């Protein structure tokens, strides 16, 4: 086998979450109330545009969640047939494989975006025209950035412009293909002519905001395509201190952000739903205990608790190196520990909300009617209370996602976040912060991380807004 699959715990959770999302979709399709709610989300333009962007992020994250260790080959590409196969200690993902040139073409140190020469001056020896070695201080030429231009560095601007134009053309072509496919699908679904279907796509108030999806897709393609074409020969977002490509880093950070944002909710949700509903429904001493628990927990400063837990985890990891075959597994465990502790510290808000709502629901007459039938408490909770809380849970889920992504950045910045070897927005910002004081400033690392994180969080927030509007029963009736 040319590779050895590596299954990290976070991979398992991510794919399970995908499965859960598909299951939720299937259940929603069967339940008419949920179906109409999701259809309302589908009609929201902002919601669908942000969903398109989120989907792109999700694809990147999922590609980055299939890990393997490549087989080591003996120099020269010849495999030694007799020896047992040996695999590299480095764990790669499918995304790494796709981005191989980006991953491997490391420069010596900082370089600006699209640069052909390094950021810092060095002493270089140049053989002068008279044949003598001359020492000069200049920006050295990059090993990979713009290497294909050879000595002809002046050509860079023309080359970049040409590639961008080419990429824009390709992007438009790709977009047109998608648009035609969508139009054809709509035409077939509604058994109408193409022209009519096309007009329907762009008219507002339709069943699904295709226009928003197509617009978002166009914007995405027009931005991503030039980056992709330029990335083959340039460092589009520059390189960092150790010469690694920043574009590669931000793409790798997406998975970390998604894991933090999604897996944490797995920890948080059962705690808050179960405890919140129990406290609200049974009241009395159950309520007292649960309230005591979350008031105590939420009065401890969250950062302190997280710092303590992460440091304990780090000690545990350091004292048991034999548990981990690779560095990736070690980093992964720390990531999960971070998710867990974030979940434990952040369930109180939702729990309080659900407790209050349950207190309100349990006094409603349909609950009393069920009690008059002698329906058991657990059944009342399962059938009458939890379904009527689901809109709050869904709203809280999507709203929390963005705050968790931001929390990770902050925690990594103060050094108690993910493993330093794991690329995340937080570690990127942390590494870049010292360089802000340099003159001339190294701005690209920070800006790239900022731009990607901003678009991820903004898309998540806009989507959360659309979901809230669709699921909130008080707003559901309004257009």
């Amino acid at each position, binding site marked *: 086998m040319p590779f050895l699959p590596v299954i990290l715990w976070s991979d398992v959770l991510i794919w399970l979450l995908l499965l859960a999302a598909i299951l939720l979709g299937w259940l929603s399709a069967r339940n008419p109330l949920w179906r109409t709610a999701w259809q309302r989300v589908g009609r929201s333009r902002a919601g669908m545009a942000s969903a398109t962007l989120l989907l792109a992020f999700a694809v990147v994250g999922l590609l980055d969640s299939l890990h393997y260790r490549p087989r080591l080959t003996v120099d020269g590409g010849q495999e030694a047939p007799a020896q047992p196969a040996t695999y590299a200690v480095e764990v790669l993902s499918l995304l790494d494989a796709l981005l191989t040139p980006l991953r491997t073409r490391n420069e010596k140190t900082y370089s600006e975006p699209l640069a052909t020469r390094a950021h810092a001056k060095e002493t270089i020896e140049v053989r002068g025209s008279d044949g003598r070695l001359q020492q000069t201080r200049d920006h050295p030429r990059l090993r990979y950035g713009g290497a294909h231009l050879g000595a002809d560095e002046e050509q860079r601007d023309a080359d970049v412009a040409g590639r961008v134009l080419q990429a824009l053309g390709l992007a438009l072509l790709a977009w047109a293909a998608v648009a035609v496919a969508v139009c054809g699908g709509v035409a077939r679904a509604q058994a109408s002519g193409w022209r009519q279907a096309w007009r329907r796509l762009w008219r507002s108030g339709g069943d699904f905001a295709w226009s928003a999806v197509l617009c978002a897709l166009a914007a995405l393609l027009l931005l991503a395509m030039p980056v992709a074409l330029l990335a083959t020969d340039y460092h589009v977002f520059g390189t960092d201190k150790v010469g690694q490509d920043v574009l590669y880093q931000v793409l790798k950070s997406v998975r970390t952000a998604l894991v933090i944002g999604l897996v944490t909710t797995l920890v948080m949700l059962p705690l808050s739903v179960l405890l919140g509903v129990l406290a609200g429904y049974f009241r009395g001493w159950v309520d007292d205990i649960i309230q005591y628990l979350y008031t105590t927990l939420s009065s401890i400063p969250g950062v302190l608790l997280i710092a303590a837990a992460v440091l304990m985890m780090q000690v545990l990891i350091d004292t048991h190196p034999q548990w981990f075959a690779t560095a990736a597994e070690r980093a992964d465990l720390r990531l999960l520990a971070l998710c867990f502790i974030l979940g434990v510290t952040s369930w109180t808000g939702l729990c309080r909300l659900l407790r209050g709502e349950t207190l309100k629901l349990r006094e*409603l007459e349909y609950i009393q009617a069920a009690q008059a039938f002698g*329906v058991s408490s657990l059944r009342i909770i399962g059938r009458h209370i939890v379904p009527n809380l689901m809109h709050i849970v869904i709203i809280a889920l999507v709203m929390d996602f963005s705050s968790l992504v931001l929390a990770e950045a902050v925690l990594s910045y103060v050094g108690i976040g993910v493993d330093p070897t794991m690329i995340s927005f937080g570690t990127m910002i942390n590494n870049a912060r010292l360089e802000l004081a340099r003159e001339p400033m190294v701005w690209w690392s920070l800006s790239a991380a900022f731009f990607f994180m901003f678009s991820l969080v903004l898309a998540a927030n806009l989507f959360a807004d659309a979901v809230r509007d669709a699921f909130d029963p008080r707003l559901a009736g309004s257009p």
Partner: protein
Amino acid sequence: MSALQSRHGEELLAVRQLRVAFAHGRSLLPAVDGIELRLAAGETLALLGESGCGKSATALALLRLLPAAGRIVTGEVLFGGRDLMRLPESEMRAVRGGGMAMIFQEPATSLNPVLTVGRQLAEVLARHRALSGAAAQATALELLVAVGIADAPRRLGEYPFQLSGGMKQRVMIAMALAGEPRLLIADEPTTALDVTIQAQILELLRRLQAERAMGMLLITHDLGVVAQMATRVGVMYAGEIVEEAPRAAFFAAPRHPYAQKLFAALPDLARRGGQLQTIPGQVPSLSAMPAGCRFAARCEHAWELCRQQSPQWRQVAVNHRVRCHLDDGLVSRGRDGGSITAAGEALAVVAVAPALLAVDDLRVHFPIRRGILQRIVGQVRAVDGVSLALARGRTLALVGESGCGKTTVGKAILQLLPASGGRVRLLGEQLGSGARSPRRALRRHMQMIFQDPFASLNPRLSVGEIIAEGMRALAVGGPAAGRRATNAAAVAAVLQQVGLPAEAAGRYPHEFSGGQRQRIAIARALAVQPDLVICDEPTSALDVSVQAQILNLLATLQGELGLAYLFITHNFAVVDHLAHEVAVMYLGRIVEHGLVDEVLRSPRHPYTRALLSAVPSPRLDATSGFIRLPGEIPSPAAPPAGCHFHPRCRQASELCRQKYPPPSRLSATHAVHCHLYPPAGERD
């Protein structure tokens, strides 16, 4: 005085072709469609109609206070000679409160809970009369006295939560009066109040109007209130005024079929035991207004022309106009056509059957806890020694004002609340004790129908699931095998019983109107084949015409299935129509109990008398001997010593202050707790 005289009769408000619509998506749904109104000073115009007819939208449009989605499409509102629709917002603010003021339905939410009464009054005074400091204080005090609030200086410094509902409504009225408005718009001012308080407030409004020569636009759905208050009546239906008449002419002979139907749908003694006339269907929704006459779909006299063409105004008498294609002769008064069947015989059966339900000295006390250790410092005696008996096929009405504990009695019987004392026996077996499974078996025999059909159905379950829940929980319909199929059949049967199509089982509650939802709630209760149904104000959230449908349904079901109803209500017309026996509750105790004729025709207890006299009658010939009850219901946490009613009773004697009166039997069925009627043994 002459100035006041001259103000009387002067035209105050003229509304021409007012159209109000609500934006829904990209379309405008018309809520009020070209109404015309005139109102003179000193006059009360009552706008009458069911919910969803556009009454409140009209009132809000006059003040230009429509919600964000509301638009005034066209129309002219001339108020004191100025067109309000053309005024800039800054001048409009002077009109609101200064020119016309509004009283809202719900006093509890119309006052700001974090400001004292004095502050809220001072705010209006500062805005409209430029009063501040001591002058404002003095005026505020004057206003509170004018609206009949006792101990006014103290009340000025109090917060709304310290006031009772009736007092809050008085404060609202005082605030409305603070700007010295010339027109008062009262949007269902007494709907949220008890009858005795309602009578006080209506009396107050009448007095203030006479004193200040204000015009009043009264919005209500209650014909009784209209009969007491109005000088003229406008009947609204689906955004149009369909009839306009002076009060006397309207109550003597309403012309529009809708108005006639409203009268016919009112439950009263004449049709006891029989069927009430109902208006089939419901008010059309805003998005599906019929093209012709809007009432055509529900009108039994409708003919071709009605469906095609909207009728024009037609003068039928002086000041009496109607919008209907029908000629006079065609429509006879619907009231007389009511079927008076089986009125007497149902009543003739005196309770001889063995009691299905026997409640003996039921007590429900809620502890009041204080302090860190949650020590019990007192008891709220919500129900304090109630005894009842109810036989199969009979209806016992439990009446009383809010807070008297009648709903608590119902819930305690159903074991939804733990009883603190006393016994409840159903079918001879005692409830509230013993193991879980026999209790569950007994649950089958009693069910409850709740007040609010919008809160009593789980919005996330389909109608079929809602109805089947009880069957499954109580294992009605045999063992688990094949239960699904039998359940589906049973659900269909029960739906048919309450007059809903079997397809309704697959739909969700939000697709149904209030009346249909109440039918579903009844179907849910019937699904487990109970013997006793506790109805907790099942019609108070419904319109008159729908109320009639539900009352008819309940009566039919009782006839067919022999159900016993414990009917909890504050509506005496419904009691009169449906009940066999009545028990009047005051502060957790039954003060009078007897057959419906005995209690309603010859009430003995002073409280019953006061209650009955306070009920506004939808007739002109009603005797207006309203017995004014001073004060409000005392708190059940600290009931007065002796007879609970003595602080509000005019006939109270020293004995009443010392000792709770024992029951006095006036006849075999009629008992009263009052010292005015000493028990037989002590008499002579």
